């Protein structure tokens, strides 16, 4: 079954029931690193998801919802995510300036 006409990359999406003409859902596989798989195992248990699939489905929905926000809201959310994951007191100017200095030293 080809998805090319529908604009879906056929190489990444596999039908869970290829014989059903009108697909209700598709399965998408993804490779995880060992660390990510362990984290998924742990968080699935800690947050009480029914299964790892359910945890991944929720994560994907949350991520896609974030990307669908309107421009300014998305940027504000990304700023918060950036600061929570890697907080830093260094300013943008200092970071770019430092990069320039290093490149000039090469």
């Amino acid at each position, binding site marked *: 079954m080809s998805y090319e006409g529908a604009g879906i990359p056929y190489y990444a999406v596999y039908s869970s029931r290829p014989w059903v003409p009108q697909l209700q859902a598709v399965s998408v596989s993804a490779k995880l690193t060992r660390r990510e798989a362990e984290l998924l195992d742990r968080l699935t248990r800690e947050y009480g998801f029914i299964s790892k699939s359910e945890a991944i489905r929720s994560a994907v929905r949350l991520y896609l919802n974030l990307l669908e926000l309107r*421009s*300014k809201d*998305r*940027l*504000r959310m*990304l*700023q*918060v*995510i*950036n*600061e929570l*994951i*890697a907080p*830093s007191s*260094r*300013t*943008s*100017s200092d*970071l*770019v*300036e*430092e*990069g*320039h*200095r290093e*490149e*000039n030293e090469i």
Partner: protein
Amino acid sequence: MRLYLEPSILVKLFKKEPDSARMVDLLGTIDEQRDWFACTSRWSLLEVARALKKDGKPKELVELNLRELKRHRISFIAVTEKILSDSEILIASHGIYASDAVHVATYSSVARVKRLDAMLSDDRHLRRLGQIVNVLTLNEVSSDTVQS
């Protein structure tokens, strides 16, 4: 307003700084209002990536931030042979950093065609090049012109 966005300004989008909220508003205005225009060098993406990596952001977050940057109404101008040649001359005559020279040369190469008003930057080195490029800071872009 029609602006060239220098990397020090673009990095603000992904950090919490005093004027980073203003930068988000500005980009929102650029996205939504047809009479606003923004461009930057394709090279800026590398500088933004480098700055975010230096800031300790993990690979996935740097990639997400760059994808986000490409999603907005910002034109990314290719680094051509002409821009590189002009950059060499700028370095020789003004003693500026190579990256700054690429931005000034890119700005000059498109300023007339794209009818640019200014280069938006926090880089104090570029202030010295006032005769070649009109440099504005975020504070100088009137808060009245940017819709919150």
